[in-house]
């Protein structure tokens, strides 16, 4: 047994207790310098050469960033960079979305903490949470980017909005963390509901939104009903089906009656577009990818061949070719009266592309589930459906989460390709800004640095989180 690993480890949060870990050596500064920088001749030589070089580069970099750079193109067009030509009268929707999604993140965090605490209590181990300072250090990239961004704004609005979002997130997190672990499912259903609401507060509560709203609500309701003891299994099945159907019916009715308009996809631009495209593409690609992965592992040769052909075809071509295809003639494939908007076409291309990669990831996860687990499940009389639901999927998805986060990061970086097909994402807005009369002839490097920093901050934070997750889950070690 590895002394560094506790008995029961929560899926998403800190380890419960480090049992008998060897003490970490903390050297005094002089010894540290000697040991780590000048331990032998080669190391010393390298240090002597590198130190002044690094100091010089850092000096030049900081000089550029804070003294010589002219940030006015960024400063004056900050709204344009963030949300493009979004109707300024409807900006409250974006603000509301930010706050709601921040609350959803806080709720998710709280749910993870509550679940971890519950499992710790079940195992009889104490539970201790990371102090706030450690969390701040963890997210230093995103927070400093946020700080830089706030420095550039010209009014107090963004500052208030950021503060409100952070406050909402923290409040929900602390509330959720206090909820007993039995109700974890309800918390996650709440996260789902907040996620959908946050999306639709911008796009409007109409169309097919009732499906997306109904799903998490149905999950919560079914989980609540499941705590009751039902006289027979068939009765439970009937009740469950009725509950699901009822929830969806109510959602449909509500949406049909209320039906508020929102701002359509065509007006989503800027950095907001990069984030939304990545999120929507991976949400839509996940079921498709799951389907493809299952088909690829199927024993039916027809399904296997077709899905393999699709996956290999899509993985073999660069994304830019799919985007070019979507911009020029994907509309010709569908015989619609309504031509698809530019963003819809691009998201279709992203979804098709991501689905192939998700399929490979999920296939790897499914393959990693030990055969013995399935056989063990069957040996206690579980149906194949139950084996899948209770044993295979949790194991497979746990193994797959870091890779999925990595795919999301890659997808987020790939949204920069939208600028090549003239869709107004962050990189394209840079072009728009430099067409304006005031900035036609300067600020080119500064805007590029700003775009780089924006992408870097988000990707770096997500990749750090994924690395922590991988360490916590012990992928490849157990």
């Amino acid at each position: 047994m590895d002394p560094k690993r506790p008995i029961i480890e929560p899926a998403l949060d800190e380890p419960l207790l480090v049992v008998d870990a060897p003490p970490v050596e903390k050297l005094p500064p002089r010894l540290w310098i000697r040991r780590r920088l000048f331990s032998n001749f080669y190391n010393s030589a390298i240090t002597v050469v590198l130190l002044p070089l690094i100091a010089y580069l850092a000096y030049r970099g900081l000089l550029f960033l804070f003294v010589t750079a002219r940030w006015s193109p960024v400063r004056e067009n900050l709204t344009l960079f963030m949300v493009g030509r979004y109707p300024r009268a409807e900006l409250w929707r974006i603000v509301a979305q930010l706050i709601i999604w921040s609350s959803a993140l806080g709720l998710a965090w709280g749910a993870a903490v509550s679940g971890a605490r519950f499992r710790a209590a079940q195992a009889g181990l104490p539970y201790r949470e990371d102090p706030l300072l450690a969390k701040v250090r963890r997210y230093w990239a995103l927070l400093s980017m946020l700080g830089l961004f706030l420095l550039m704004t010209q009014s107090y609005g963004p500052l208030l909005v950021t503060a409100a979002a952070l406050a909402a997130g923290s409040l929900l997190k602390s509330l959720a963390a206090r909820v007993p672990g039995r109700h974890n499912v309800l918390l996650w259903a709440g996260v789902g509901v907040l996620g959908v609401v946050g999306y639709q507060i911008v796009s409007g509560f109409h169309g097919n939104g009732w499906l997306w709203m109904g799903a998490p609500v149905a999950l919560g309701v079914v989980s609540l009903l499941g705590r009751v003891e039902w006289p027979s299994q068939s009765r439970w099945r009937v009740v469950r089906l009725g509950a699901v159907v009822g929830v969806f019916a109510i959602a449909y009715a509500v949406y049909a009656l209320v039906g508020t308009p929102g701002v359509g996809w065509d007006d989503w631009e800027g950095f907001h577009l990069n984030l939304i495209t990545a999120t929507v593409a991976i949400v839509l690609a996940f079921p498709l990818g799951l389907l493809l992965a299952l088909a690829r592992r199927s024993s039916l040769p027809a399904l296997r061949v077709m899905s393999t052909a699709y996956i290999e075809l899509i993985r073999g071509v660069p994304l830019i070719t799919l985007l070019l295809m979507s911009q020029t003639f994907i509309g010709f494939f569908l015989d619609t009266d309504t031509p698809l908007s530019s963003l819809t076409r691009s998201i279709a291309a992203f979804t098709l592309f991501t689905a192939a990669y998700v399929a490979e990831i999920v296939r790897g996860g499914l393959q990693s589930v030990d055969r013995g687990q399935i056989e063990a499940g069957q040996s206690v009389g579980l149906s194949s459906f139950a084996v899948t639901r209770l044993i295979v999927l949790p194991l497979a998805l746990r193994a797959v989460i870091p890779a999925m986060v990595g795919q999301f990061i890659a997808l987020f970086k790939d949204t920069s390709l939208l600028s090549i097909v003239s869709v107004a994402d962050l990189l394209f807005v840079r072009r728009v800004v430099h067409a304006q009369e005031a900035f036609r002839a300067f600020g080119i490097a500064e805007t590029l640095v700003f775009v780089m920093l924006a992408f870097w901050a988000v990707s770096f934070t997500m990749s750090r989180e994924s690395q922590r997750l991988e360490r916590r889950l012990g992928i490849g070690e157990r």
Partner: protein
Amino acid sequence: MKLTKRWLVLLLSLVLVGAACGDDDDDDAGGGSGTLEEVRDRGTLRCGVNSVLPGFGLVDEAGNYTGFDVDFCKVVAAGVLGDAGAVEYVPLGVEDRFTALQSGEVDVLLRNSTWTATRDGQEGLTFVFTTFYDGQGVMVPADSGFTTLEDLADANVCTLTGTTTELNLTSVFNARGIPFNPVTFTDSAELRPAYEAGQCEVWTSDRSQLAAFKLAIESEGGAEQHIMDETISKEPLGPAVRDGDSAWAQAVQWSVMATVIAWELGIDSSNVGSFTADDANPAIARFVGGAAPGLGLDADFAVQIISQVGNYEEIYTEHIAPLGLPLEGSTNDLWTNGNGGVMYVPPYS
């Protein structure tokens, strides 16, 4: 691993649902005939524009579109719908500008597109009028001393990709036997620093664009620029509509031409209210009274256009003149002014 049909069905339906959940604000637009009725039913005009072209289609900090072509979108909206603000701007790039018009995503394309035979024929477009007579020009640093195209042998020539600029450059230089090396970029924000750093010695584009950037570079303290007198090609820019819809084409055409007619008649946005249908000048009387049935436009369309947007001179002066291209004496001047301009419109009678 076992899987039941139920899972498959469930997942399949999730996928289909996900595909159906998308653009919720679908408007009803289609190609072919009947665009006029469709636009009137919808109540807004969908106009394909540029968002990165100085003078023609730009986006300001507040997210509003401004520019010469943008104003003509407003002109068409005012003429057809009576409201210059009822426009939905659709920014288009080089790849999809024509397919957007063909597929019905936009009703009219006002994206500084050049009128060529290939586009009329192969791309299924109909150009209705030339709002701006431009030409492809060549810009070099003033201290380079180049005066003719022959001086540019073997030079690096910066240009934007996917435009008639590239084609014209190749055909003209090859015809005159001048070897050259094209350096193409996707947008001017990357081209300009390359040009200023000397990575290319020549910048070729529409003369209006060159004028805009010449002004920008010189005002920022850069080196002085010189736009050569030689014009590589003619670039007549104007609005385009889909083939096969002559009613719509005529409506757009006369709305746009109304601005030039008003200029000819001396009507602008400040004095349009003072003219009535009983004016002494019969041309003005017809124009303001609007007796031209069969065009599919309302009787007062001309008044709406001029009062809400302005006449050609006002539009030009607001957007193109600041680029350093004065209207008087240019190719876009009125033919009747006798200054060598070619802006000539049929009479409104």
